[in-house]
């Protein structure tokens, strides 16, 4: 069976808009197929989070070369909201607190904005409420947390679970998880991983960015990439993550040179 290319990154170069001398991505090549989980590991400062931001359309970076397509459609010229409507989702490493906006209002506005952009009908209140409650329950998100302002005063674990709840509600095609395990204890990590695993399906791709291997015990990847100095320097199976765990990055990076 032929595999559908969900996300295709070709020779992607990016630098800081404010300081063009800071070149962060130096030719990233990566293809994530539908139904597959790819992981990117790498030392601090290797460009992993920047890749996530560039893919989601955050300001502050200039793409100088290369292309990114989502289901065959070039997304680099799209606004962040257009990328979202096209199916891109970034689970933030540091989810932003928005005091004054209720979590429910936020979720509902986001869901309906995407539906509107895709020419679909808005979700009715009852339909929406039921969906949120069901999904929140599986993520062990208390109804009370839904009423609070977005991420405001949430613990680290609550913030990350809230990211997964958004992912579950928005049903994106391509999910990027940026250091979703950072700041989580084992139980919280397991909850988040279960949430992610529940969303794995043949029509969805995942890119899991992580510094440590431990998350990959729970979200088992199909492919593991090692990133260094803005490039993918090694690609392998799930066993590559174990190798990093045991020996660190030094050997792999030396070998790549």
């Amino acid at each position, binding site marked *: 069976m032929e595999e559908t290319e969900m996300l295709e990154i070709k020779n992607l170069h990016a630098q800081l808009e404010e300081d063009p001398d800071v070149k962060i991505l130096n030719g990233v090549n990566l293809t994530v197929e539908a139904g597959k989980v790819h992981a990117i590991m790498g030392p601090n400062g290797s460009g992993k989070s920047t890749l996530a931001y560039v893919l*989601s*359309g*955050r*300001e502050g970076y200039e793409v100088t070369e290369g292309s990114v397509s989502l289901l065959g459609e070039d997304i680099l010229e799209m*606004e*962040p*909201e257009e*990328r*979202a*409507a096209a199916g891109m*989702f*970034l689970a*933030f490493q540091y*989810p*932003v607190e*928005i*005091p*004054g*906006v209720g979590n429910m*209002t*936020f979720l509902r*506005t*986001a*869901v309906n*904005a*995407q539906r509107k*952009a895709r020419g679909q009908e808005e979700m009715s209140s009852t339909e929406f409420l039921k969906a949120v409650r069901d999904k929140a329950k599986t993520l062990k998100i208390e109804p009370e947390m839904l009423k609070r*302002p977005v991420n405001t005063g949430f613990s680290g674990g609550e913030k990350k679970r809230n990211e997964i709840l*958004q992912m579950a509600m*928005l049903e994106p095609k391509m999910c990027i998880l940026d250091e979703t395990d950072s700041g989580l204890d084992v139980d919280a990590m397991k909850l988040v991983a279960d949430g992610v695993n529940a969303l794995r399906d043949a029509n969805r791709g995942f890119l899991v960015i992580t510094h440590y291997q431990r998350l990959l015990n729970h979200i088992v990847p199909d492919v593991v990439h090692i990133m260094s100095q803005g490039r993918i320097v090694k690609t392998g199976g799930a066993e590559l993550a174990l190798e990093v765990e045991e020996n660190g990055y030094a050997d792999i990076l030396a070998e790549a040179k």
Partner: protein
Amino acid sequence: MALRREVLLKARQEAASARLDALTLPAGGGWITRAREDALTRLRAMGLPTRRDEYWKFTDPAALVAPATDSAELLGEDPDGTVFDTIDRLKIVFVDGEFDADASDDLAAEGLEITRLAEAARHDLHWARDAYGLLEAEGQAPVERPLAALNTAFATDGVLIRATGKVSRPVALHYLRKDGNADAMVHHCIKLEPGSEMTLLESGAAAARFSQVLEVDVGDGARFNHVRTQGRDHERVSNSNLFARVGEGGVLKSFTLSANGALTRNEAFITLNGRDGVAHIAGAALGDGAFHHDDTVFITHAAPACESRQVYKKVLRGGATGVFQGKILVKQPAQLTDGYQISQALLLGGDDSQFLAKPELEIYADDVKCSHGSTTGEIDPEQLFYLRSRGMPEEEASALLVLAFVAEAIEEIENPDLAEDVRTHLAGWLDRHRG
């Protein structure tokens, strides 16, 4: 210094005499005429404010003081005219500052005694004759508020309300404007007997120039809720003065939403007179273009263990100006005071708008908790990106963040239905001022 004060006073008195030449004391007779004459005496001694007054440093009072007012364009269908329409309320309508009996509901309500100010002289209202102009006169120190004395002397209409029970159905004052030149003064006086409760709503465009005084005496254990929206007409100039006294365990909560208006000065002078009293005053102001909005608040803690909050949020764009002057005065007996004050401005679409803030604390008690803060900022790009990354178009995301910015002020509205109504009203304004 003495010479400067004399020069200033002379300028003020000249301004007053020019204004007074154009006015005559309303007919009335009896106690109300005496109260008006007293106010006139106060006014003559103070004169009317000029730009050189310290208290008017950020806001030019000329348009409020001038003998005559410019006409202000009459708006057709007011898209905000339906505020509070979904709320069950006792509606009292004023047209160009004059009570309109046909458009108003019957004034009889259980737990309330409501009388028209214009008819007050014909009634021997003991409580009103002791109250009309009293809190205004007391509120002339330590800072003079001459426009309020002018109002006490010349206001032709308004309502006198005495609350004797717990009344849940709000009294709604709706100000309609039909004359492009209307120059109206309205004065309301409210007395809440101990343990009573009432809610006062105000809405509408009112007049080309509108002056309003609201005196509220909150008795021991009484609760007064006040929610006001000031119309969206661009050319209106208005000044309002709230004078309130809160007794032991009494609660006063006042919220004002202002959208547009060439010049608006809302003053509040609140004194917490009895132990455990609470006064919360909040405002959200939205201005686009030629807009000047000034909130000037003075809260005095005169008794122990009282709580006060001042929460002001201003959304400014297109060269609009926001002003906040807020003071907390804690007198020596007011131990265990809990005072909070925040004033914040959100500047949209560049930096041609400005926010001028003067927060002040003056504390003579040693065991108090008082905090104040003032900020000016733009929409947080991190928050905006987060919302956009979830699929919200930039304008929709911005509008949501603006609503979030003013949320802390709206949260001061106790009644959730009223809060929701105000929020909807505000969202409508944002919708019309995008781009």
